[in-house]
């Protein structure tokens, strides 16, 4: 039976993990490579790096990190942030990424998804959708960390992304992100029932029930979280054991 995935996400800026953790096991907690290896050993089903500064000069830095991570990590690695063109994707895949997460470039031009998925395959194309509720039952896509409203309907865009060759949707609720009050289940449900491809729930996790709700109520195939793991509130093992005790299929 296919298992639901738990994915820790590391926000990286200038080569360092931004949301810090205090795992005693780590020599250098700010080193994304050390953290990725730690999560790999702790039972993470995948690992996600998000290059939050994603400036031009940072591309080399993130590629260096991905290269070093590939030597220590033997679960799928997704890398996102600032991907603008085919060459950016190829560089990351050659460095050791298994999937790339694309946001603004896909929102600006949906054809980019098609071009990239034809070249690299749908399996490595994760399309990141950052959605904010604008009225009852309506969500729109925001870019630039939530500052810029594109006016694009998030559910329609997710469907369109699927048609253009997305392999997976990484769905973040901008309203919930950082609140620790749980995923936006209505948004999640709306997207998961409208696309055939897997959806990763993101934004808002504060406790283990939120993972349960995201999977069982929201229909997510995978759940992503950052701070709940980074600050050591819960371990991946605890999250999995909890889900397993509630009959949600996970890889133990």
């Amino acid at each position, binding site marked *: 039976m296919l298992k639901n995935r738990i994915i820790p996400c590391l926000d990286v800026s200038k080569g360092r993990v931004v949301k810090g953790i205090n795992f005693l096991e780590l020599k250098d907690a700010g080193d994304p490579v050390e953290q990725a290896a730690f999560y790999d050993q702790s039972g993470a089903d995948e690992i996600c790096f998000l290059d939050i500064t994603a400036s031009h000069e940072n591309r080399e830095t993130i590629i260096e990190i991905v290269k070093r991570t590939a030597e220590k990590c033997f679960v799928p690695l997704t890398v996102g942030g600032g991907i603008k063109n085919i060459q950016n994707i190829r560089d990351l895949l050659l460095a050791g990424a298994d999937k790339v997460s694309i946001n603004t470039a896909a929102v600006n031009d949906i054809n980019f998804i098609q071009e990239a998925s034809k*070249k690299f395959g749908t399996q490595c194309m994760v399309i990141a959708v950052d959605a904010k509720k604008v009225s009852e039952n309506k969500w729109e896509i925001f870019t630039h960390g939530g500052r810029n409203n594109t006016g694009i309907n998030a559910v329609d865009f997710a469907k369109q992304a699927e048609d253009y060759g997305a392999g997976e949707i990484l769905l973040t609720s901008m309203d919930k992100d950082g609140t620790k009050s749980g995923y936006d289940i209505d948004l999640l449900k709306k997207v998961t029932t409208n696309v055939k491809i897997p959806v990763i729930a993101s934004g808002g996790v504060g406790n283990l029930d939120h993972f349960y709700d995201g999977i069982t109520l929201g229909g997510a195939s995978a759940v992503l979280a950052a701070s709940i793991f980074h600050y050591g509130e819960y371990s991946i093992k605890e999250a999995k054991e909890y889900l397993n005790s509630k009959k949600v299929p996970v890889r133990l």
Partner: protein
Amino acid sequence: MLLTIVDYGVGNLRSISKSLEKANSESNLNYSIKISSDMTDIKKSDKLVLPGQGSFKACKEGINNIDGLHNELNESVLNKKKPIFGICAGMQLFASIGHEETKTEGLNWISGEVVKLKMSSEDLKIPHMGWNEIKIKNTSPVFKNLTNNDHVYFIHSYEFTPKDKSVISLTTDYGKNIVAAVSFRNIFGAQFHPEKSQRTGIGILSNFLKI
């Protein structure tokens, strides 16, 4: 000893080479692992790994686009009987025919077709993506020392359906039984990604290096 990961423009090549290097050092073997599309490397190699990402058609075109590669693969695998390991779409290429995008001839080393996954249940997402359990169908020198229900990582929307079912080494359950690994003479392949399947995957790659 030389192992070449055949580079025809697709795949998470470094990810694959890093896992092979790990398997190599853990098994105290002495392979050089090379990523190359150079015919002289492929000729010199003792073993080959055929990666694959993207559509069957795109992968086959990738092979055809490199002068002499198709012939050299046939020569190495069919005549010189070099062990080869195909990963994901790389394994699917072993088939006679693929139906992704359009009907495309494969390498035709293992008779059978590659067809779109059809799910009986609406709940099952496509691609089949994530960690799933293996079921052991037969023993093979590469797919051994495994346990039923070991987890491996899959990402695919098409499945290989070989004509001769005895080539199937492992299956997985996704609404129905899907071929997860095949073994036929010196030809081995996995639908899942051993390079992304932690201990289980490294173990399989070690077995391949040891044969």
